[in-house]
């Protein structure tokens, strides 16, 4: 079977992999490169748990043909912490009880990271819109929304 070489940056590091025809980015990240942070949920663009950032924009890794990220920058939850220091979103998710079963969390974190990088001081409405493509069946969303608003404050405090 035809295998195609694809090179891209993953969380700041150059990666080169061979991908099978029709492989999606999620399989390449998980099976090919061992980054287990993005999850497989629905495989059809409904649940959002495979959300990663491609050149800073949120994208669904399960619907992204692997070849299309050649030469681009992919970011996952594995790239959020700064060494031993968690990202403000991760701290805020823990302290606001924004994860219960935790399956939606990686997608929520990346959708929120995309928002905060564009809008450091988002309104509640903007937060709701930013995670509107991510399904959570445990929390009822309220703790997640609170955590993202809290993370925005933490991020601004850290920056100042």
């Amino acid at each position, binding site marked *: 079977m035809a295998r195609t070489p694809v090179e891209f940056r993953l969380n700041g590091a150059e990666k080169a992999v061979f991908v099978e*025809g*029709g492989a*999606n980015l999620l399989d390449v990240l998980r099976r090919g490169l061992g980054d287990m942070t993005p999850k497989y949920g629905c495989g059809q663009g409904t649940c959002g748990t495979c959300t990663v950032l491609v050149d800073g924009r*949120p*994208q*669904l890794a399960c619907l992204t043909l692997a070849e299309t990220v050649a030469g681009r920058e992919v970011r996952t939850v594995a790239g959020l912490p700064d060494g031993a220091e968690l990202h403000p979103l991760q701290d805020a998710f823990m302290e606001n009880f924004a994860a219960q079963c935790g399956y939606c969390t990686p997608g929520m974190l990346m959708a929120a990271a995309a928002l905060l990088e564009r809008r450091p001081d988002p309104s509640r409405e903007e937060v709701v819109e*930013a995670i509107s*493509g991510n399904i959570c069946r445990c929390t009822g969303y309220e703790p997640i929304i609170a955590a993202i608003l809290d993370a925005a404050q933490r991020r601004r405090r850290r920056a100042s």
Partner: protein
Amino acid sequence: MGLTVETYASAAEAARALAAAQDARYLGGGTLVMRAVNYGDQSFRRILRATDPALGRIAAQGGRISVGAGVTMAEITESRELGFLAPAARAVGGPAIRSMATVGGNLFAAHPYGDLAAALLALDGRAVLADGREQALDELFAARGRGQQPLVTAVTIARPERGAFRFRKVSRVKPKGVSVMSIAAWLPRSGGRIAGARVAYGAMGPTPRRVPRVEQALEGRTLDAAGVQAAVAAAAEGLDPPEDAIASAWYRRAVAPVHLRRLLLEEDG
């Protein structure tokens, strides 16, 4: 998987390969094709794609605007040129879908998707094919119903006068829910009266469709309660809306006049 991916530098080459192939699907943003791949669709063995920069172009052309088939929903919402179309682009999926889903793909998205396509139809949209031919979107959708799916490289649309274009998507879950229906209306006015209205529905048939009886009933009228009465009465005339998990055909017919009225009078809800 056993699929082959073919990447072409120009849309014209990809179109030729697509026309010659029985076993190929063209991939734009991937939200439709990769879903089929993930679910084991055996109807195609080859994925064709093009990296042609022309596919991503938004350009003014006289009174019209050309939107490349590869332009994403997110790019529409960020374009100053296409501000009037932003509400329709924002109605598609969540942010991650919007950074992938393309204008071209939306033209071929099966029910209940294709909200943007309804807006393009109302704006006198014309598909530009890879060989340079143009096809009105009405015709493209009719041909799509017969299984024809040519490669579209761009869609040209009218630039509506300020405030003359309206769009709303009706869904049960907000902000991201599947369409009960979507309504797009281009309502040019002359001396306060509507002249040349184009109204299109999404999710009210297998493809987006215009509602000529509504358009005729709006002609020469004013946008007030009395003026829109005939159009609202005709809202569901002659329609055979689909039945799905979101809504029954009966429900879609029953609520069409309510939502058309709200759109025309710009009421909340």
